Structure formats: C-alpha cells, structure tokens
C-alpha cells in the first residue's frame, strides 16, 4: 500500500502525499468497523475483561453448580475452594496482561514475566496440593486433556473476539491461558481422578497448550504482517 517499499524521506511534499493517500484507506478501514464484532471490540476494556473472566470462571462453576451432582464427589469442599480460588487468581492476572490496552504504556519485562509466572504456577500448585491429599497415583485417562481443550473453545473464541489488535508474546500466552482456564476448571471440578500425576499431566497442560498455541498464532500473525499482509489486528 502507498508506495510499497519506497523510503520515506519526510519532506513536506511527501508528507502531504502520504496524508492524502492515507485518508481514503482509513475511511475504508473505519467503514468496515461495523457489526457485532466491531461493537464488542469497542466496548470499554474493563467490561470486555470482566466478561472474559466471567466466561473462564463463571461458566464451568455455574454449569457444575446447576448440574449439582456433577461435582466430583471425591473432592472435598476445601479442595474445590482452592481450585476455584487459585484459578480465579490466575485468570485475573492473565486477563489483565492479555487485555492491556494500547493506550497504556507497556508493562516492564519484569512485571510481565512475574505476572505470567504467577498465572502458570497456579495450576501447578493445584497439582502439588493434590499430592498432599491424594498422593502421586497413576496418570490415568488422557481424555481429560482433550476434553479440557474442547471445553476451552468458547473461551478461545471470546478472547479472540475481544482483542482489538493481534496479540504477541507474553500477551498472546496470557490470552490463551485465560481461555484455557475455562476448560481446566470444568475438568478440575468434574474429574474423579484427583491424584497429582493425573492432574499435572492431563489437567495443567490444558492451560499451557492453549497459551503456547496462542503464541504460535501470534507469531504467524506477525509473520503475515511482516510479509506485507495488511493491517494487524492486535489486542
């Protein structure tokens, strides 16, 4: 667009030409900002963040509560509270990192890494606590991982629809992890296998896998943009 690979030399005439060519393209881009997706993306950040967090936490808890007996009976109330509490803490951190708007200065690398580490440590801590109550145990059925990923899909769709521009690196990981906590929590509340190895090998990776997939997707978006793939859509 606008002259391809030409160098910009910042002369007055070149600036005028660039601005003149910019306006019609911008008007086209703004005209495309219509429909429910555009409406949702333009909602204030706290509102979008709250809905994403509610989706990740509220949906599995609500559905499980509605189902009543669907709570795994082997899980004590205290264990359930720890699982929900730690997941809620991690979801909040992930959402704050993933949905940080562009009109805020970037977080320092140290703060971003610490936030991400706390997000990741939460499901690992649940697995370690499971060891104290139920021992290491066998790895058990691997279906939990697949089921958890499937249950996370609504969260993935919502996180993706809520992004105002492409998410990269730590932000992408946090976005994927936030979505993954929906499936993780749903599985954690239902699964009758409470042993540490099972939790760490088939539940915790739901969050990790979606975080990593989101990073890969971000890299791919970045590569497309670097190759001249048009306007990025970062979040």
């Amino acid at each position, binding site marked *: 667009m606008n002259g391809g690979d030409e160098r910009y030399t910042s002369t007055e005439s070149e600036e005028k030409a660039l601005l003149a060519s910019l306006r019609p393209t911008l008007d086209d881009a703004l005209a495309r900002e219509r429909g429910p997706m*555009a409406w949702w993306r333009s909602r204030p950040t706290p509102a979008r963040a709250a809905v994403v967090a509610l989706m990740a936490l509220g949906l599995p808890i609500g559905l499980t509560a509605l189902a009543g007996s669907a709570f795994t009976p082997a899980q004590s109330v205290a264990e359930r509270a720890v699982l929900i509490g730690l997941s809620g803490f991690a979801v909040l951190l992930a959402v704050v990192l993933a949905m940080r708007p562009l009109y805020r200065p970037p977080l320092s690398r140290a703060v971003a890494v610490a936030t991400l580490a706390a997000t990741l440590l939460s499901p690992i801590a649940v697995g370690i606590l499971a060891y104290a109550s139920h021992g290491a145990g066998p790895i058990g059925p691997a279906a939990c991982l697949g089921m958890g990923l499937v249950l996370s899909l609504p969260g993935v769709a919502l996180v993706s629809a809520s992004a105002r521009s492409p998410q990269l690196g730590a932000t992408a990981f946090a976005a994927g992890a936030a979505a993954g906590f929906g499936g993780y929590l749903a599985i954690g509340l239902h699964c009758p296998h409470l042993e540490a190895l099972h939790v760490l090998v088939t539940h915790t990776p739901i969050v990790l896998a979606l975080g990593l997939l989101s990073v890969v997707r971000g890299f791919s978006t970045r590569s497309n943009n670097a190759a001249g793939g048009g306007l990025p859509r970062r979040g």
Partner: protein
Amino acid sequence: MPPEFETDEALFLRYRDGDSRAFDVLFGRYAPLLTRVVARALDRRAEVADVVQQTFLQIHRARFDFDGTRPLKPWVMTIALNLRRQRQRTWGRSKEVYTDVEALDVPAEPPPDLDRPKDIERLRAALAALPQGQREVIELHWLEEMPFAEVATVVGAGLSAVKVRAHRGYEKLRVILSAEPV
C-alpha cells in the same frame, strides 16, 4: 463554536457521539504529528502509512475507553508509540530498553548548543543510536514539545525517571550531532 476552535478533547467526545466532522478536524491535527513521530523510527513509506492508519483505527476501537477529563494527546501518542514499537520488533530493528532510575535532580533541558538538524536522515540516525527509553523521551519532549508530565504518561515512567532519561539522552545526542556528518 466552529470545530476548528474546539479543544481536542471536546472534539473527540463529539466524534465518539457520532460527529464525523469532529473526526475530520482531529485527523487534520493529529495525522501530521503522528506521521512525524512514526517516521522517525520507520523508514519505509508503506510502514509509516500503515502505523499511522493503525493508530487511528485503534483510537476508533478504544474511543469508549477515553476519559474526557484527561488530555487526548498523551493518550493518542501512547497508542502510536506502542504500535511503532510493535512494528520495530516485527522487523527486529529495536531492543526494548527500560531505564529504572530513581529520583535525581538533574537538568533535563536540551543543551542550548544543540541544534535540530534539518536533515531528517541525520536526526533519525542520531536518535536511533540512543537506547529506546531515552530516544522516546527526547522525541516527545524536544521535537514534539510535550511537557515532561505528559511524556511520563506516554512512556509509563515517573517524572524524575523521565528527566534522567532526557538528561542522559541529550548528552549523547550532543556528542553524536556535534560530530561531522559523514
């Protein structure tokens, strides 16, 4: 009052309410500024146009996040610098540098013998030699004449840290620009 005489903030609130004429005036005020800021770090015409356009698009998407009691310019500049950094990282041309400096009382004005070079290429090269944290502060304060308080808002640092970055940056810039151009 004709829109040309309204403040940026009043215009933006009217634009948010659907007044497209207010956007025209804002575009006229901000597009040249954004183009200058973006072009100091990116040198391809398509990239400059893309980032400026993307900035306006992000402003549009985030319009309901804007707090009308705060100034618009730092808000817009933060978006532009974030997108510029992102584009620089995409092309692997820049490294994030964060300066963690506590309060120091140092002069942070541009040295009186420091002239702005007329040659954009020379200025761009000189600025590119500075760490990112210092470069952004100097661009906003010296070239865009933003007060330090607003610069601090844009770069997300404390006032004194921003002054320290400016002081150090001006010292380096003076050395670079006083050297004979090759």
